[in-house]
């Protein structure tokens, strides 16, 4: 993982993380809406809302600062996928809330880990301080999501059983 040294750099990373998460949760919510899975759709909508709030708060925090413009592929998270971003291939139209929240949980945990790593890294102190705050905040998220997930039963074995064939279109 590339070292992150300044607050500006860190904020740029954090913003990218939140924006990516917002985008993906939005896409997933839309997916579930179009495939008639409203319960999971609502859940992803909620996540998208939370993440975009984060992003917005970051934007406010970064007001006045000139953040470096980093192309998405220049962001370096070590070997990991971007923290807080659920893999595009992970969704399924029959997925249950439990499964959705499990994905969210993993992503949030990766965010915790990332911020923690930065906080423990060797950047300047202000930045480390900021990172630690974020790590703490994300940790709260993790707990919240974990609780949230407990409200739902785990899926049964044939959760993805669809007796009908896919549609052909063109």
């Amino acid at each position, binding site marked *: 993982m590339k070292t992150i040294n300044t607050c500006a750099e860190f904020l740029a990373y954090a913003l990218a993380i939140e924006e990516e998460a917002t985008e993906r949760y939005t896409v997933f919510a839309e997916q579930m809406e*179009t*495939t*008639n*899975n*409203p319960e999971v759709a609502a859940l992803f909508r909620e996540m998208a809302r939370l993440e975009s709030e984060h992003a917005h708060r970051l934007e406010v925090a970064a007001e006045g600062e000139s953040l470096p413009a980093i192309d998405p592929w220049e962001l370096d998270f070590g070997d990991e996928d971007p923290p807080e971003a659920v893999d595009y291939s992970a969704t399924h*139209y*029959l997925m249950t809330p439990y499964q959705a929240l499990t994905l969210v949980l993993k992503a949030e945990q990766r965010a915790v880990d990332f911020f923690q790593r930065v906080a423990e890294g060797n950047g300047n102190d202000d930045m480390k301080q900021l990172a630690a705050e974020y790590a703490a905040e994300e940790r709260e998220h993790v707990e919240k999501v974990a609780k949230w997930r407990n409200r739902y039963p785990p899926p049964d074995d*044939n959760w993805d*059983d*669809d*007796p*009908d*064939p*896919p*549609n*052909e*279109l*063109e």
Partner: protein
Amino acid sequence: MEEHKDRASSSISIALIGSGGAGVMTAGSMLLEAAGRAGLFGIMTRSAGPQIRGGEAAAMLRLATFPVESHDNEFDILLAIDWLNADRFRAEIPLGTQSLIIGETDAEPPQAFTDSGARTLELPLKQIARETDGGRENMVVLGVVCSLIGLPLEPLHQVLESLLKRKGQAAIDSSVACVDSGAAHTGKHQGSYQLSLSSEKQCDLWNISGNEAAGLGAIRGGVRFVAAYPITPATELLEWMAPALEQVGGILVQAEDELASVNQLIGASFGGTPSLTATSGPGLALMTESIGLAVASETPIVVVDVMRGGPSTGIPTKSEQSDLNIAIYGLHGDAPHLVLAPMSVADCLFTTQWAIHLAEKLQTAAIVLSDQNLGQTRAIIERPADVAFVSGRSIQETPMEGYQRYAVGGNGVSPMALPGTAGCQYTADGLEHAPSGIPSSRAEDHRQQLDKRRDKLVNHDYGDHWALIEGEGEFAVITWGSSLAPVREARAMLLSDGIDIRIIAPRLLLPVQPERMQQALAGVTGALVVEQSHGAQFFHYLQAFYPQKFEFMSMAQPGPLPIRPEQVVADIKTRGKY
């Protein structure tokens, strides 16, 4: 009201709606199969949202004590597992005041449906399903429907048994339990749409789609080579044929595109093997140049066009009869060929088989115009009779001095030497040619070969199969293909008002049969032309080739909605001045 009851006792229409994963299609198929086992006739069509998976879907069934080929004017029962985006099916599922809408408890049915004045019924489908281990709502729904229409549960149990075998006994048991439980929940509605089941069972019924029927017809007709490129809604015909051909020693080749597939047919047929492909509008468009080659080189091939909504990519999953023009007139130059159209699911078998026979016999290209409606409708039908039509190509079997592949004279069909026959070597050509096959631009050769290719088709005796003719009235309805079914139902409705109309539906669209048509129209004073196209293609085709003293009237309605019998009745009543 009474009338409704009467109709209901012999034919019931049921729509099952639900989102992907709910299994309405499977439930529908099982219901159809069970009805068939109980000796009923029926059809099932499908509709779905634009999503590839997970979208809203509808299985639309009509079960009846008599053979049915199209949907009724209204649905009697609409049963939804969920209502998500269900209103997209509004136009496809017309309801009336006698209809019954059934949905999950506390899930309000969309106003689009309730506006019809239909009665509603709420049932705790989810809860009923949950009460059974591994239970599913779609099985509950099946039980509900059976109870409403009075279908005994036993055949359905059998269907579950055979279809769920590979899932294990537990799955069967839970499905059976759900069905039974669903059936037990209809309360006072039980039997309220009772179908009068006849006690003597139809003993030779089939459950088949038009696409499958066409495939079977092809094989019965002698086709042993298919080259094709997948395209909706023809793919299923091909998918059925791939393994089926193997059983008879034939083969299906998936080609790189339609240009390749049609030319592979020409090669195979040149070698002596009856060959066929299936496609839809865009694919047919790509094939026309080479269909012209088949015509000019007198190489038999058959192309089944399972029509969909056009133009261009159009509406691939919906039916329309708008490829009539391209099929009749779409080849460049003067290229006489065969165009045939099946008019029911069962007739897909007959017409395809006949097309192969004719193409082979007359050494030309045949286009079979099926459509999405016929092709993808699954129906319980009486086992189609075996017909004697098999490929019977005129072959030059023995060596022959001065063999001329395109010899003129006689009935225009000249014996074809197959590679391997010594002494008859020739080169087939798409250039105009002398009787030998050698290219020629002489006026006499051109005229002779043009005459030959036309006359062999025109002079053939196609017999009574050329058209279906029914009824005696002075007012005729001329229609074709899948539009025949609603027209026939319309006639039945009119008959009950004491009005008879004459129906003429040509199965053979090219070459035209002026004398036969004249005979069929004898005494007719007015005719309505019913078709599913925007441009009134069939109407203009009739004017072009069968002009009459009276003027044709046109009822042309584009897809995607099917033509309903009552629309035809209304139109006839206005135009026929009844």
